[in-house]
């Protein structure tokens, strides 16, 4: 997992929608959310930062929290997504698809130009993957 500040900012930006996506499946308690996000392997810089995020999402009206204290079990605070949260998640999903595609095009067009043929051949931005070792990360032809 990269410690690059830019990646940290990027993770911070997408963590909220990811939490909303998990809560859209079903209500979850804090540790459950942390474990699932940590299991993805690249979203969390530290587990603890999920909790302030949950508080902010609740303050923004995107999630609610409620204590569940079933007899004989541990009391847990469960977080649920609200209708406003669902709307925001839906909007983010739509934006993210376009955004990720755009970023990928720009990022890998630069790599393709740098790895282009000697002699100053001009890249078109529509050529194949620049790094043969990572063909799956190449730009998408449109």
């Amino acid at each position: 997992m990269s410690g690059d500040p830019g990646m940290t900012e990027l993770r911070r930006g997408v963590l909220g929608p990811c939490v909303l996506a998990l809560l859209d499946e079903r209500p979850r308690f804090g540790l459950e959310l942390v474990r699932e996000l940590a299991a993805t392997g690249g979203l969390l810089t530290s587990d603890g930062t999920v909790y302030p995020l949950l508080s902010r999402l609740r303050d923004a009206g995107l999630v609610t929290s409620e204590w569940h204290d079933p007899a004989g079990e541990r009391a847990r605070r469960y977080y649920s997504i609200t209708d406003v949260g669902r709307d925001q998640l839906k909007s983010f999903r739509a934006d993210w698809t376009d955004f990720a595609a755009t970023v990928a095009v720009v990022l890998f067009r630069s790599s393709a130009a740098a790895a282009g043929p000697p002699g100053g051949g001009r890249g078109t931005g529509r050529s194949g993957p620049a790094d043969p070792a990572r063909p799956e990360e190449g730009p998408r032809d449109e």
Partner: protein
Amino acid sequence: MSDPVLERPLVRQYLRALDAACAILPVPQAQELHEQITAHLEEALPPGASIAEVSAELTRLGPPRSLAAAAAGPSRFLVLRKLRNRARRVRWWVWTAIAVVVSALGAGTGYLVSVNTAAPLLVVETGWLYPADQARAVDTTADDVTQTTVPDRFGQRQGLLLGLVNNSDWTQMILGVGPTWGFGSFPGEAQVGVESGPHLNQVGATVSGTSYYASPGVIPPHSFRYIRVAWTSDACMGADGGTIVDHITLRVRVGLITRTESIPLNEAFELAVTGHSTCP
């Protein structure tokens, strides 16, 4: 809920550090984060967790300062927010005590400034006190400076009569002359009496009854009073000797403070050895 996990030294240390870091947060937000982290640790750590497991879990949680910073949001105005949140943690009675102390300090400072900056007394009239000296006084003027000279009457009472104005807003009590003031060899031994009476007006005139001289005596604000400064002359000087003063220093109490005022006289006063001097 009491859980042995929370009693583990590493956990207790972490939670203490978290509480300290959360000083930048509003109290409810800090309490909620503490509760969330506590619940996380209770759930994540089994009761018999090893030190390594505890340490690994705390590492995964992240440094307490990072959690507090994440809860605080962007760092803009962080210092102001920190101060504000710290201020909100102060109990009402502490604020009350601070307000009382600040008010008292402010009032005290204002009082001291006021009394210290009170206008000093001003001499507007001068003369010899006793007829024996008045009759023998010789006045001379040179370079716009007037000097009045009388013989030094060794072993006898001599003195000055001064008219003083108190231009300040404070009553000024004259306690005596300054410790170093005097003619020749009797510094500090002069007695000072201030014109007093049951009913004196601002210019020192008696409205009813009679006036007298009191020591110590007071001059009310914006008022005029005569004072008598008398001493027993004991400076025996040789022929053509003399001693001159052109100011008087008075110990004056203004409010609660006592200060020494050095007041210029309208003319210079000299005790001189002349044909009338009675030095043995």
